[in-house]
């Protein structure tokens, strides 16, 4: 565990504190269908981040007055477990968690075809069990898989990744120390196949050229992550479909 202020964030070989190249993602592990009760669920590990997402719905909404006549309502909660960080996190929802819940919901809204289920709710619960930077992006990646797992129609998967600047370099997928002691962090969410941005935030300091470089790098990261998302979905469902050769849904009835 590295404690305190790191001397430098990029070493003489151009490598980062965890040995990555500037444009390298952390190792990512994705699992789908990990919870018994949820209609859809997914788990992501990205470096030390460990995040679990459960989706319930579409289901009846309570209180009833929150329903919308022409579409399903999305409800999203991003929550950090009290034990997820170095210092214990107070379990009461922080302003940061409230803001992140909102931007994650807004990152998923353009993808979910909510018009198919008017007057219902789709609940998305994101539990950050261990946090090491970039949890909102990892949460979006897992949430979009959990939505797909729940069979909810979507225009595209939402893929998400951050880029930023640390040690004078533009870098991909910042982990906690790089976020804290670096110069800038920019989380991006992209619907890759439609080429549409659904989340963009930035804090720090980037000149317009650096901004462009980081933005392009983050989108490239999203494209790589989409590949992993599709792989995870296929791994989850291919077994069901092709346990013994080709399917035979031609034999199906109505």
């Amino acid at each position: 565990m590295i404690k305190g202020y790191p001397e430098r964030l990029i070493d003489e070989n151009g490598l980062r504190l965890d040995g990555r190249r500037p444009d390298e993602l952390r190792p990512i592990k994705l699992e789908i269908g990990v919870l018994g009760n949820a209609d859809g669920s997914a788990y992501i590990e990205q470096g030390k981040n460990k995040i679990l997402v459960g989706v319930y719905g579409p289901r009846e909404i309570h209180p009833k007055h929150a329903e919308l006549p022409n579409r399903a309502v999305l409800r999203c909660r991003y929550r950090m477990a009290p034990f997820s960080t170095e210092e214990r996190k107070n379990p009461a929802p922080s302003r940061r968690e409230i803001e992140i819940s909102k931007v994650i919901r807004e990152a998923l809204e353009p993808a979910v075809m909510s018009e198919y289920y008017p007057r219902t709710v789709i609940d998305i619960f994101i539990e950050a069990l261990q946090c090491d930077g970039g949890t909102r992006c990892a949460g979006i990646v897992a949430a979009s898989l959990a939505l797909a797992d729940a069979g909810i129609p979507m225009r595209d998967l939402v893929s998400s990744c951050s880029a930023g600047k640390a040690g004078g370099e533009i870098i991909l997928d910042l982990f906690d120390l790089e976020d804290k002691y670096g110069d800038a962090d920019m989380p991006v969410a992209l619907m890759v196949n439609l080429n549409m941005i659904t989340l963009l935030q930035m804090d720090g300091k980037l000149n317009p050229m650096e901004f462009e470089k980081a933005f392009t790098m983050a989108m490239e990261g999203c494209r790589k992550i989409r590949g992993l998302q599709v792989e995870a979905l296929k791994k989850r469902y291919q077994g069901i479909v092709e346990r013994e050769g080709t399917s035979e849904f031609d034999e199906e009835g109505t």
Partner: protein
Amino acid sequence: MSITPKPSITSILEQNLIMELAAKSRRVDGRSLTDYREIRIERGIIEKANGSAQVSIGKTKVMAGVKLELGEPFPDTPDEGVLTVNAEFTPIASPTFELGPPGENSIELARIVDRNLRESKAVDLKKLCITPGKKVFIVFIDINILNHDGNLIDASTYAALAALLNTKMSNFEVNDGEVIFKDGNQPLPMNNYPVPVTFAKIGRALMVDPQLQEEDIMSTRLTIGVDKDGCICAVQKGGMGELEPDDIRNAVGLAVEKSKELRTLIIGGS
């Protein structure tokens, strides 16, 4: 829990009008896509605050007040003063604002203002340290929305910045860890002047400073904060829609230009 909000209903007739105009790079109130409404700034209107300002953008009206208090620093920044931003959506400002604890919109607003000021290092917090790890000045910025006619993010940040520039703190000296206040005032030590530029996407058009009617039908909102060096210091996409990558590139370019004239206006006269 963040929940899909109930949309405010704009008549289809008005929606169509705004969309059709946007497609021709025009707007209902005759502005171009890159024009702000008239901005007015009044400074020092609350004598009991250390600093204050009221900013109007068109009919939107926001007041910001600054209060300084002594307190403890954060453990991870023991040698820096503390900056906190709070925003109240008071029910007098809009029929859609309700009483109760701050909702996600006011929290998001406060955090965007905070991000602009913090990331650009607007206030020189190092100069607000008295005894490292023990005693520092806390800068409370409280934002009161008085009338909501769109673009609260820009109005609030301009008001906060103008209030900081208007802030007077007593002269003081530190004796054995104790603060002794003396006669006379000094301005708050400032390093930077972040200026956000907020865009609304309507149809395929991107327009600055959306008024309420435009916000009600916009698909997406995008705020680009630019510091005095022309660097980007804070960005936030909001709303339930999406943006093309080129929208963001265009917005960044435009925000860098636009922020220069806005900064002159906000600093000028302080």
